[in-house]
């Protein structure tokens, strides 16, 4: 594989075949990743639009922009779209799909056709959900609690529930593919201890996808049946128990948050060593931490239910376990930080996003401790404190990781360099906008402003206005990459095979890679992150 500058004649996965059928019937994991990229971006806009409505309404204490019902639908749909149709697929289905086979030296995932089917399932679920949206919407909150969702809501609960149920299968199939691929498709010499941490983290994510998603699937089935057939399983006036739903729901939905953060951590584990020119500090500890997060993450679900009427003693147990789950995340943050020690650090766009991730994920994770602390949780549960916490980890963490990853691998995916100056500017804008949007919400939450409030007492207005101002800045920060990444497809500088001089088998292929990744199956003899023997990249300069 000669390191040519990419010429138009060289066959790669993008120009191997043309025409819409070659895309819609592809089994190439890289093309499927792009199909996902388009769809999740579309949903990001939909969820973002709902967020815009929310923040505009909350500029004033009175409910004067939307009706109460419309507002309730807005936050429900913001949550459902962002969680199920954006965050959960995002990094795994785009970057995971694209990179995992290459990172382990394989020609494709274990089950390429199932990969394509998973995208179609996602699309079907998405179309059903959009149909639900435009024909009335749903207003139960993304958490679907009975008895409101099963009996009192007058909106399209069944349709939304079914759409999310279907989307779960997409998740399960993706997880299935990744697990079998990592077990069975590694190139000779690619032992578990030589796997890139990106792969370790996605492996842990896939375990959660496989074991957790079916539970919410059956829970939604029960809700749909209850609502359609008036069964009474969750209705206390008919012998049922609404708290049973909460247990079943959170049994998945808590591990789900780790589905959303682990892939982002995966990206950071690749960016930090590359832009520090050093192996990751404590590789085995970072790898094991991913598994530990997945494992412990399954036994903390009732920390969402401390005031739901569970017994005192189970609250104690879940609080304790919830503190335990914070430890492996902290270990990762320390290891990434230590990786920079005595390194050779450069401030490229991906690295800026990594810095942002480390800072914001730290804050988000630490505020999780407040919620694990029983006495404090009682006060801040169901307030803006919780909203601030999870946006810090999911947006400040997961989305920044996603953006960092998109920039890091953009040359590999598209064969073009993005404009570095704009990249850095956008990263900065996102960081500032994000903090202005969500930091005031910690204060609002402690003050007592509850979640899901269409109108609020006037003394909360100043903080809400700050938050909305931040949101507009954040929106700009998100729009910028969309613009310049698209621009780069046509006008960007052609990329080398390995512009960042990163380790990892994916960088040994051309940019963009050929359809079957490797002409010959590579044989691995080195540890991951062997930066000792890597030359330095050219200066990462500000390109126009």
């Amino acid at each position, binding site marked *: 594989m000669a390191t040519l500058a990419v010429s138009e004649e060289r066959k790669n996965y993008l120009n191997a075949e043309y025409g819409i059928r070659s895309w819609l019937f592809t089994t190439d994991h890289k093309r499927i990743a792009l199909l996902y990229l388009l769809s999740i971006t579309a949903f990001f806009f939909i969820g973002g639009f709902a967020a815009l409505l929310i923040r505009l309404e909350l500029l004033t204490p009175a409910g004067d922009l939307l009706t109460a019902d419309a507002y309730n639908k807005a936050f429900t749909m913001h949550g459902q779209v962002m969680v199920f149709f954006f965050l959960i697929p995002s990094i795994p289905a785009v970057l995971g799909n694209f990179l995992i086979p290459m990172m382990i030296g394989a020609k494709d995932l274990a089950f390429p056709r199932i990969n394509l089917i998973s995208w179609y399932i996602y699309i079907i679920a998405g179309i059903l959900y959009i149909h639900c949206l435009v024909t009335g919407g749903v207003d139960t909150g993304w958490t679907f609690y009975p008895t409101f969702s099963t009996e009192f809501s007058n909106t399209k609960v069944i349709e939304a529930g079914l759409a999310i149920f279907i989307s779960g299968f997409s998740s399960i199939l993706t997880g299935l593919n990744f697990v079998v691929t990592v077990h069975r498709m590694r190139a000779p010499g690619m032992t578990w201890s030589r796997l890139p941490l990106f792969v370790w983290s996605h492996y842990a994510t896939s375990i959660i996808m496989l074991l957790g998603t079916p539970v919410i699937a059956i829970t939604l089935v029960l809700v749909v049946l209850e609502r359609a057939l008036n069964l009474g399983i969750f209705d206390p006036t008919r012998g049922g128990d609404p708290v049973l739903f909460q247990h079943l729901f959170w049994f998945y939905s808590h591990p789900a948050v780790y589905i959303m953060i682990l892939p982002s951590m995966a990206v950071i584990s690749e960016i930090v060593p590359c832009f520090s020119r050093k192996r990751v500090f404590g590789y085995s500890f970072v790898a094991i931490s991913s598994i530990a997060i997945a494992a412990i993450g399954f036994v903390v679900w009732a920390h969402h239910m401390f005031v739901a009427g569970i017994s005192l003693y189970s609250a104690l147990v879940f609080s304790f376990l919830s503190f335990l789950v914070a430890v492996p995340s902290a270990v990762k943050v320390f290891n990434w930080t230590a990786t920079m020690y005595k390194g050779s650090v450069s401030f490229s766009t991906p690295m800026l996003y990594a810095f942002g991730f480390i800072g914001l994920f730290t804050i988000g994770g630490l505020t999780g401790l407040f919620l694990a602390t029983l006495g*404090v949780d009682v006060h801040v549960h169901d307030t803006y404190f919780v909203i601030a916490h999870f946006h810090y980890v999911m947006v400040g963490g997961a989305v920044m990781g996603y953006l960092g990853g998109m920039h890091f691998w953009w040359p590999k995916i598209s064969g073009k360099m993005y404009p570095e100056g704009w990249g850095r500017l956008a990263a900065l804008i996102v960081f500032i906008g994000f903090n202005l949007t969500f930091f005031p919400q910690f204060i609002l939450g402690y003050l007592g402003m509850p979640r899901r409030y269409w109108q609020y007492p006037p003394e909360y207005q100043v903080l809400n206005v700050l938050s909305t101002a931040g949101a507009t800045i954040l929106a700009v920060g998100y729009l910028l990459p969309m613009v310049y990444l698209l621009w780069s497809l046509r006008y960007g500088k052609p990329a080398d095979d390995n512009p960042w001089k990163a380790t990892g088998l994916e960088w040994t292929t051309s940019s963009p890679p050929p359809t079957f990744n490797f002409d010959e199956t590579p044989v691995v003899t080195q540890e991951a992150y062997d930066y000792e023997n890597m030359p330095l990249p050219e200066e990462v300069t500000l390109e126009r």
Partner: protein
Amino acid sequence: MFDNFPLWPASASSHAFWEDVLYIFLVVVCVAMTLLIFTLVAVFATKYRRRHGREATQIEGSLLLEIGWTVIPLGIMMVMFVGGAVLYFQMRTPPRDAAEVYVVAKQWMWKLQHTEGQREINELHVPVGRDIRLIMTSQDVIHSFYVPAFRIKMDVIPGRYTTMWFRASKTGTYHLFCAQYCGTMHSGMIGEVVVMEPNDYQAWMSGGPVAGSLAQNGQQLFQQFGCSTCHRFDVQGRGPNLMGLFGKPVQLDDGRTVTADEDYIRESIVNSQAKVVSGFARPSIMPVFQGQVSEEQLNALVAYIKSLAAAPAGEAGTPELKNPGSGPQSPK
């Protein structure tokens, strides 16, 4: 702080003070940790920024550091855990002679009943310095009773009672919010907790209309629903004697011992088959009153049964209400 731009909520209960202490401890620890990470990242990124001719030093790791930064955070977290657990335990363990208020939540309002008979809607008047216990249930969906100034919150669930307690420490008017999304006017399901000096509270109490104390209503219902047929106080009836029952341990026929608290009494009325007292046949002959008794009626019955003082040993006697009022009925 500023009147229209507060940054810290009012603190008006004994519990609120300690919760703030714990919170501030957490804030300090977390700010310290954040600053540590931020500083380290900033320092490393600048001190070790890429410079021509200087290479990175490959470091595999350090077992000592790994152990250190696993164990130390774990230790700090255990302190947080214990602090939170103690506070939570206190919050969920009401003092024995707390005054009680029954709360019924419905879309989208709060209905409150004092034991003395006062009824309120979306407002709760309480005397300062007094232990108050809320016994709450919902008529429809799950709500949540939240008073930020007291730092307390508890979900209010249809079909069962949940409880919490507080002791207000400062007079004033404080927000009451519904904190569990419950539909269209969830954000309108708000009210006020008015904490008054004891004298003012007395004055307020006697001002309003009293429709008979809650327990007296309960006594009427006890007759009306035929409970007195089996639960007699003069001789041993078909059902257990309820005198002095409240708060005592009860031996069930499956060997368990439970405490006769409000939930137990309520459950026994609504679903008599759930727990059967030892010595009584199963299935219980007590009817199931689910669907026959409204939430307010249940509150009154529970209040009545609680008011039944234990009869002197060996004597049959008529039950004495703890709160004699102007009720007309005398028990048969």
